[in-house]
């Protein structure tokens, strides 16, 4: 009775969700594939079929290849910078008792700011003449370190990723703490009785136990890095000399600024496929290392 009554819900309950997915997701995805084979490279849409022309153009476009390289570099920078910072904030925050609330607030606060606020703010912090960072370094007598952070090809990607990390780190710290919470404190105690140093106990106990959480975070970071757009767009628009151009910003530049929509659509497809492939491969690779207790 109940079962059959319940079965009547199947269609009406699934339809709204499916309608959203079909109209605003699947249909556009199919359209996008079509556009990527068309000659729509102007303000107004045209539907001429040009075969693989847009894709071969991608392959020969040094600026696209540079953008791909930068996108992966950006992910690399995120890995190298964000994950240590994340641990360095999460472990103390997890350990302390007093003042936890206020410290956590200060770490999370940037997360709720609008992405534009974070980006514009850092653009100003980095400003060589009006920014806090260079003038602060000068006041400390560290002129030699001052840089034109966003104008220097060797620092621009790192500078933007620092801004983006600052904005998002709160979420990551909270996620890591959730992982740390699941580790029994007895383990650490046992380790310290055995004479393990803090460092050893981190590598031998904490790290392996949060590895499952970390795996998810790395995949999430990868997907996020491949889609990076807003920080780059607001802070550097790809400069200097394309050294901070990433796939997202280059796609936007070509499609929406330059009205090369077919070209942009081809780029989007390449981006989507690389996210799928690399996430899959990454997942497989990390699974092998997974430590089970």
């Amino acid at each position: 009775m109940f079962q059959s009554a319940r079965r009547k819900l199947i269609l009406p309950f699934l339809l709204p969700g499916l309608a959203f997915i079909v109209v605003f997701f699947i249909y556009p995805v199919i359209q996008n594939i079509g556009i990527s084979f068309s000659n729509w490279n102007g303000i107004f849409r045209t539907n001429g079929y040009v075969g693989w022309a847009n894709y071969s153009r991608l392959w020969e476009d040094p600026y696209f290849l540079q953008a791909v390289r930068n996108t992966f570099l950006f992910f690399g920078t995120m890995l190298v910078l964000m994950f240590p910072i994340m641990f360095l904030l999460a472990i103390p925050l997890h350990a302390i008792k007093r003042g936890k609330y206020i410290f956590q607030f200060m770490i999370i606060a940037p997360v709720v700011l609008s992405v534009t606020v974070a980006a514009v703010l850092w653009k100003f912090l980095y400003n060589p003449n009006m920014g806090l960072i260079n003038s602060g370094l000068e006041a400390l007598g560290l002129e030699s370190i001052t840089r034109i952070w966003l104008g220097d090809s060797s620092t621009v990607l790192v500078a933007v990723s620092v801004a983006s990390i600052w904005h998002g780190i709160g979420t990551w710290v909270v996620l890591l703490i959730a992982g740390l919470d699941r580790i029994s404190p007895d383990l650490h105690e046992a380790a310290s009785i055995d004479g393990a140093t803090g460092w050893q106990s981190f590598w031998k106990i904490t790290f392996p136990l949060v590895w499952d959480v970390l795996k998810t975070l790395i995949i999430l970071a990868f997907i996020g890095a491949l889609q990076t757009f807003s920080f780059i767009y607001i802070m550097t628009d790809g400069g200097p000399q394309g050294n901070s151009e990433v796939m997202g910003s280059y796609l936007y530049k070509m499609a929406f600024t330059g009205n090369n929509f077919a070209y942009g659509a081809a780029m989007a497809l390449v981006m989507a496929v690389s996210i799928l492939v690399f996430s899959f491969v990454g997942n497989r690779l990390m699974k092998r290392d997974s430590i089970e207790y």
Partner: protein
Amino acid sequence: MTGKSKGMRLAYVYLSLYSVFNLLVFVWIFLTAMKGQSEFFATSPWSPPEAFNLTNFKEAWKVGHIGEFFANSAYVTGISTVVCLVVSSMAAYILGRIPFRGRGIVQLVFMLGMMVPPFMIVIPLFSVLDSLLLLNSLNGLVLVYVTIQIPMNVYVLTSFYRSLPTEFEEAAAIDGASPLRTFFTIMMPLTMPALAACAIINILAFWNEFLFALVFLGDKTKLTLPIGLFYLNQGAEYSGKWTILFAGMAISCIPVLLLLALFQKQFSRGISQGAIKL
């Protein structure tokens, strides 16, 4: 023991440094927003404003439309979150509790969206919204936002529904409640922790969404906060009116920081629970 307290002290030093830096940044935004136009360029970025001048705030509100942007963002974020949770809950309930033929395929259709970047749909979505007469409209943006978060919400909620014991439903059925009522009055409330987690993640995603809002909204009265502030930034670059931009940023910070201060526990719990399910 000494090693441990030394570690504690280090933990505090470390957290304090980071917190002070963030505090400094926030204070800097507010102080800069009080500087005059020429003062802004003439003085060191570290120097405090000459006077506590609130005209920039007034101008950001009136000329800069910060209030409208904020209201638009709140509207889009709020409606999208609610719609997304309801629609996803319905689908997740079916997928999690009622076996039917083709369930695997339906599930796959829902999951597809998780790995596909928004760039893949942004170009054609424009025509879709256009043909539905929903371009340049906040409601059009709501539909897109709901769609991009459905996959993740359905995923998290489905596994939650799956984990619920069957007793509740059976008890309700014995009491003669209709399946529809059972869903809304018993099952959905039971998923509250998962719903809260999804809500938090959705709110963050919608509040910060940049690309779709940038592409689909053109009308100044309809911009969301990220785009409105961005255009204010553009305007500042063309007119040198940076102080108004800073005032706008300051205004936009206050309500969200207050909300965070009030709901910090729910916030962090929501994020972590959402992720554990992923």
